[in-house]
Structure formats: C-alpha cells, structure tokens
C-alpha cells in the first residue's frame, strides 16, 4: 500500500466535488477553474483537469459552449446542467456527513 495512491484516491473524489462547486456560481472556462483549484492546492498540473471535465460532461453533469478568445483558440465555457446541480447537492450532504464522521472518529 503506497501512501501516494491513497492520497490520490482521496483527492480524486474531492476534486470532482470542488469542480462542481466552482461552477455552482456560474459558467467558467478551464483556466479559471484551474486557478481556483491551484489556489486550494488540489491539483499541481493542469493536465489533470481536462480528462475530468470531459468525463463530467459526458456523464451529463456539465455542458459547455464555445466562445472566441482574443489571445488564442476558442474557449470552452462549462456550466452545470440540471443533473449536475442535483449531483452537487447530493455530494454536499455526503461531504458534510464525511466531515462529521471524520470529526467523530478522529476524536
């Protein structure tokens, strides 16, 4: 059992939750999401985000639209779908339960 693997496993679940939370306040494009995630030290490299976003989108939790950019290729602006919002609500309760569980058990 490697410590790195366990850490990664833990971060992975939280990461999805965090991405959905960021989009709760409105649409954003990957670079904006990355900035927030970097600030929270959740990810180190940007490459991590793209497959995650694609999978969340294909699962129907996110949708996106194209927007032209002055300084590069067109950008994908992601936003939550209805399913995504529902999904996020459930994750929120689960997260709160988990935090409680950790608090209780680690006392």
């Amino acid at each position, binding site marked *: 059992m490697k410590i790195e*693997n366990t850490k990664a496993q833990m971060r*992975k679940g939280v990461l999805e939750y965090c991405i959905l939370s960021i989009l709760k306040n409105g649409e954003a494009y990957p670079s904006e999401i990355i900035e927030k995630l970097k600030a929270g030290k959740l990810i*180190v*490299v940007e490459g*991590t985000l793209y497959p995650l976003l694609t999978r969340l989108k294909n699962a129907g939790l996110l949708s996106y639209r194209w927007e032209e950019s002055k300084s*590069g*290729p067109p950008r994908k602006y992601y936003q939550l779908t209805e399913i995504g919002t529902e999904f996020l609500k459930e994750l929120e309760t689960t997260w709160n339960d988990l935090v409680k569980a950790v608090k209780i058990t680690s006392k």
Partner: protein
Amino acid sequence: MNQTVTINISGIVFHIDVDAYEELKKYLSKIKSYFKNSEECEEIMMDIEARIAELFSEKISSNNQVIQSKDVEEVIGVMGKPEQYIDEDEEDLEKERKSSHQKHYSSEKKLFRDPDDRMIGGVAAGLAAYIGIESLWLRLFFVVALFIGFGFLLYIILWIVMAEAKTASDKLHMKGEPVNIDNIGRTFKDEADKVSDNFKKHGQQYGKKAESAIESFFNFIGQILNGVFKVLGKVFGVIFLLVGTFMLIGLLSMLIGSETVFSITSDGVFSIPSTEFFNLIFISENQFHMAIIGAAITIGLPIAMLIYAGANLLYKIKTHTGVSIGLFILWVIGIFLCAMIGIRMGTELSYNERDSEIGTSKTIINEDKEDFHLSIATENVPGEGILEDKYFTISLDEDSIYFNDIQVRVYESKSDSFEIEIEKDVAGYSKKDVNSKLNQMNYNYSINNDSILLGNYISTLRKNKIRGQEINVKLYLPIGKSIYLDKSLKHAINNIANVTDTWDSEMLGKRWVMLEDGLTCLDCDEIEGITTIQLDSIRTQMPIEIE
C-alpha cells in the same frame, strides 16, 4: 541559430525551434498514449492542445516570435506529465502505458489529409507531407490525372481512405521526422510489429470507412457547389447593389429632387412642372402628397430590399426579424395607400353619362350649298404649355386649362341637310359632376357660308382639372354633297370611313363626295380601282360602277 518549423495547434500557427518541436511531439504522443484506451481520447487531446496553444500565445512577444525548448518545458511543467495526472483507473492505465509505450514514442510518418493546407480535401497536401515533396507537384499531378481520366476517382478514393489530421499530434505525425539512417532502421523494426496489429484492426475499420465514403463524397460535391454558389452569389450581389442603387436614385429624384416630370411623347421628351401638373390631376393637394408617399413606399421598399439583398450576398449582415416584419407592414400600408388613391381616382373618372341635351349641340347649315370647306384654326393655343405634343397639348393660364383634343369624323346624313354636331366629353364621379363640367367646357367654331372653321382648343376652368376632356365634331353629309378637308385638319380627323379605305392623312387636301357606298374621293388621281370622277356626272348618274 536553430532551424524552425511551422506548426498549427488548434488553428493557431506557431514557429517553433526544431528541438522544441521534437520535445512537444514526444510530449503529445505520451499524453495520447496515456488516454489511448479511453473513448474521450480525441476530445481530451483537443482540449489539452487548445490550452497549450493558449499558453504558447502568451509566450510569444514581438521580440520573441519563435517557441523555444524552454517554452515547451515550461508548458509541460504547467500542464504536467501524464504520470502526474490524477486519474481513476490508475493501475489499469499503468499497465496500458507500459504496453503502448514503445509504439507511441516512435514518431514514424503517417498518412493524413492536411486540413490546414487544402484546396479541396487536403489529400494532395497530406500525400506531399508523407512523401516529402512540395504539395504543388502533387496538385499538378492530380490536375493532369483529371484530364487523363482517372484523377477524379483516384482523388475520391484517397479522400475516403485517408483520415483527416485533427489533432496536433496527428499533424506532427503527418509531417514526421526528417529521414535519416537511424529512423530507417527503426522504421523497419516498427513496421514488422505494425503489420500484425493492422490485420487485427482492419475488419472494424473498413466498415467505418465505407460508411463515411458516401458522406465524404457528398462533402466533396457540396464543397464544389458551395464554391460555385459563393461566386454566383457575389456576382448577383454586385448586380443587385448596382441596379438597386440606380433605381433608388431615379425614384428619389423623381419624387423629391426634380421640379419637373418628364414625359416621353412621339415628339420627344418634355418636362412638365410636376406640382402644377399633378395638382390638375389629383383631387386635392393632400391626395397628391399621399400618392407620393404611397408610391415612394410601394416602389421604394422593394428597391431597398434589392439593395439589401445585394449587400447581404456580398457581406453577411444580420437582420432582425422585427425590422423585416415592420418593413413588410409598411409596404402593405404603402400598397393600401396607392390602392385607396387608385380607387378614389377611379370613382372620380368612373362616370361618363350626362343629360343628353347638355354637351351636345347640333347646327343645320344652309341647305342650298353643295360643297363645303372644313378647316381648323392654326392659331397657338393660349396659356403656357405644360404638355406639348403633336397630337395632344395641355396648356395653362391663370384660371383656365386648354386642351387640343378635338376629333373630327364625317358621316352620312340621315336627312337632306348638312348637320354639324359638337359633342363634348368629360369624365366625372357623378352625373351632376359630369354635367357641371360639360357646362364649363368652352369650344368655339364658326360657319361662314359654306366654310366651317373649327376651333383648335377646348378651355375649362382650372378647378375642373384634367379629366379626359375632348370634343367630337361629327359632320353629317347628305348624299350627293361634297366636302373639302383642309390640310390643317392633320391632327384632328379620326378614322373617317371612305370607300377606298384611304388613310386619314391621305384624305387631306382633297374633295370628298358622299355616295350611297360612303365617302368617295373626287380629285384623287388613280387611287386603286377608281378613276377620276367629275362632280357633274355623279349628280346625274350615281353611283359609279367599279370595274
């Protein structure tokens, strides 16, 4: 300084150092192999490439146009190596990576269609990159092949068989590495591995290709048609724009710009002071203005639409449906306005009946006379001419309008006496209106012994307007009596029936006698079938037999 290569990432062109290019290519291959087994591979690659392009764009400045190795390293640092990615099936991918590692690290050339350098489908450019020559030569080859006959089919087949290079890693593969001894050696080794691999895949792939074959073919046809339509569209755009602008200028200058209306008559082009003229036609000034507005809208809007359509064909313009609906409604209003005025004018002119005693006067002329002389005054019509034509003149003075519409006809008299009947004609909206207008129409003629001098104009008050006023002069000539038609009647006589069917203009300056068959010429030399007849002989032995 190092050599540079031009690459296209996510639609943006970069100049990149050869070393940096190699590095980037390796990096992209690595990522691709990492996601190779996931369905979203292509989409993820495109997203990552878009981000890389964005990061490169930030690195480029006016004094640094070329992407260097350190830039690529930095970008890789930001994006992270696949090993650093957090992913679900960590262990599965680990295995995957090991097996695909070798294959994807090598960067042998692959045959792709080049979407960045294409004329039609990018086949020639892709082939050129694969073979390593200028695409121009291959294009020439295809053009020549087209004339020989197999070019079209060959191109279509290649189009179907070759996949389009969609991602940057595809494009890097398409361009491949410079050929050297090292690479050739490796290619042989890889080739052996690939052959067995390809056999496995072929079954599936051919199905897909056949499906997209039809699609590709229609794409191709579509592209050609699209090109043709685009050119035609531009040509029509220019034509529409020119014609529309020309017509609009014409319309505007007619409605607003000029003070005159041009009338093309048999005598040439005449200009008429427009307000004066139209005031004599329209019932009121208001109606006149409404007619102008109506005409401007009804004719002007379609012209404006023509111009718009032309502009739209040349440069795409966005339209709001609200605006077009509004314009359409305006147009309908314009038509409605014109129709209203049309109907109003129609009723204004609809009535032609009058009391029989009004407008017709009959004079019986001295019964003794045998010969008559008919002429029409040649004096100038009073007033200032607003419409002057050989056959039709309208002129004005302070309170009257003058017309010269006088029609002369000769009929056989039913009695023994020579009668002259003057019939006035005018249009109006009611019997009363017609009668009052008839009463205000003045026409003069004089009879002096056996010669009749007709007036050459009708006069009426301005308020009666131009309403088709005319005078019909009917002469009833008893059998056996004759009349001389003076040359001055040139524009007045109207289809006078005669036995020889002589034309009006030929009848002038001659003496005509009324026989039972009709008017017969007396001093015509040898008109077909008729000899010169003496007046006396006719009186005694009539009618003459024609051989």
